[in-house]
């Protein structure tokens, strides 16, 4: 199964991410966001534990991606992978451990300004989960 795919959008970045469960779909959404900034191998030299809350799945995804964007700007953190991601589907809570490297070691070509609700969805399909996100760049 494909982790994510980028879709056409005139000015911004639009992608869909997939997973066999919601955790994997969220993880792949995060990887898609970072891939839009730099595509290639990223080392795992530092890590952060994150926990975010939301009011629904879309809001939780928004807050999750925004937390990573915050780490990108404030801690110069570039994501490589995510471990132990857990989503409490009833209370819309997410815990995860994110691994990555210093942004300075990569040739970043795009500035993601913000996550948007534009056309955003988190859907459970027959046998997988799909998310869609538009990033303001």
């Amino acid at each position, binding site marked *: 199964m494909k982790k994510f795919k980028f879709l056409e959008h005139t000015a911004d970045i639009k992608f869909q991410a997939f997973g066999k469960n919601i955790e994997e779909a969220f993880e792949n959404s995060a990887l898609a966001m970072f891939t839009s900034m730099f595509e290639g191998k990223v080392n795992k030299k530092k890590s952060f534990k994150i926990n975010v809350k939301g009011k629904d799945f879309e809001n939780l995804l928004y807050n999750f991606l925004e937390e990573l964007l915050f780490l990108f700007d*404030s801690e110069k953190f570039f994501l490589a992978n995510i471990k132990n991601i857990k989503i409490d589907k009833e209370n819309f809570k997410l815990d995860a451990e994110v691994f990555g490297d210093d942004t*300075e070691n*990569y040739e970043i*070509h795009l500035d993601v300004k913000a996550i948007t*609700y534009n056309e955003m969805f988190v859907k459970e399909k027959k046998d997988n989960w799909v998310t869609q996100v538009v990033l303001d760049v």
Partner: protein
Amino acid sequence: MKKLKKIAEHTYELPKEGKMKVPGRIFISDKMVIEEDALKQVANVAHLQGILDYSIGLADMHVGYGFPIGGVAAFNLKKGVISPGGVGYDINCSVRLLKTSLTKKDILKKQKEVMEALYRKVPSGLGRGSKFQITKEELKKVLKGGAKYMVEKGYGVKEDYLHTEEEGCMEKADAEKVSERAIKRGIGQLGTLGAGNHFLEVQYVDEIFDEKIAKVFGLKKDQVTIMIHCGSRGLGHQVASDYIKKMEEKYGFKNLPDRELINAPITSQLGKEYFSAMSAAANFAFANKQLITHWIREEIKYLFPNAKIDVLYDVCHNIAKFEENIINGKKEIICIHRKGATRSFGPGRKEIPKDYRKVGQPVLIPGSMGTSSYLLVGTKKAEELTFGSTVHGAGRVQSRSSALKKFQGEKVKAELTSKGIEVKSGSLKSLAEESPQVYKDIEEVIKVVCDIGINKKIARLKPLVVIKG
């Protein structure tokens, strides 16, 4: 586009439908292709409380977040709303034009050196941040004082901020309304360009269209100018995100045609807080360009010791402001939202620097990478037709992903070099993404605004050196 009704040259009405409070007004030429979704956004904006006259789409319009880019809307102060979507994520994304005592010939002798020096000195800041490190307390002073504060600190001269929209400082700015997160995102980014369409360009005056006004602005043929295009970086982006969330929590989006049009009444506590935080972010952008101006001066003076560099003008492209206009024949203070749009005041307005006041406000329109930029002047007609507003650039027509499929950074660079333009970028990919072909033709955009009389053409500027994030 069958819904559009032509009412004058380059002027179309998008008739009032359903719950629209006013019609839409679109200023485009027959040659331009408009996205249906952008038109829908113009119509959506017309649904907002307290909107005055009409919701405007300018010649460079394309789809944005809630409001279209190239969109203008004015609101009544008592009944109207303020919306972060009407300003955009990059608060006060803006353009500053410097005029120098150098000529094209001077630059051509040292073209590569100029490129290398500016590239080294002015970072994109992408993933690297700025070499200019400040404390939180200092950053708060920057948020309060904008370009003015930077000049007081020694990074420029008084004339710099006097030749800046709002004199480089939005008065209502309140750093306390800016979240800790926004401060953490922005603190390491003062003095950085960012990426996307942001750039730094060394240009020369290729043609003068109005000698008299060009003289007032201090420009002549072959003179070298430097254009800086950047915004409020992560700080501004976070302010927008924060207040979108706050407004959604407080007011919801049930009565809105689009979740992204979230807003707050201008008179409400939250509306006022957003304006104060947005003003602080705007000041960050003013200060950002002031610091970059200072660095450019250092580098250019190192290469050309006798060079003189002055700020010609500095305009906001993404902003909400309170301005006087004539509504139903009477003077009224309105809340204007300009998103990917430029103020375009005619002669006599007190907001225009004294030395330019008789001729009107300079309007700076950057072209896409490697193409011409324009210096225009605002008009009284703009105050009548578009609440004193005009376009902000060429306007994107192609996605980044399709640009990446069609163009290669290497080739884009080679093409520019063959035209005599030296270009340097942090990444070749970003050159492909910003390839000139993904934008509308700037010439056509300029033709529309001059034909309808909201601007007058003063000078065309052509690039010699391009630095991209």
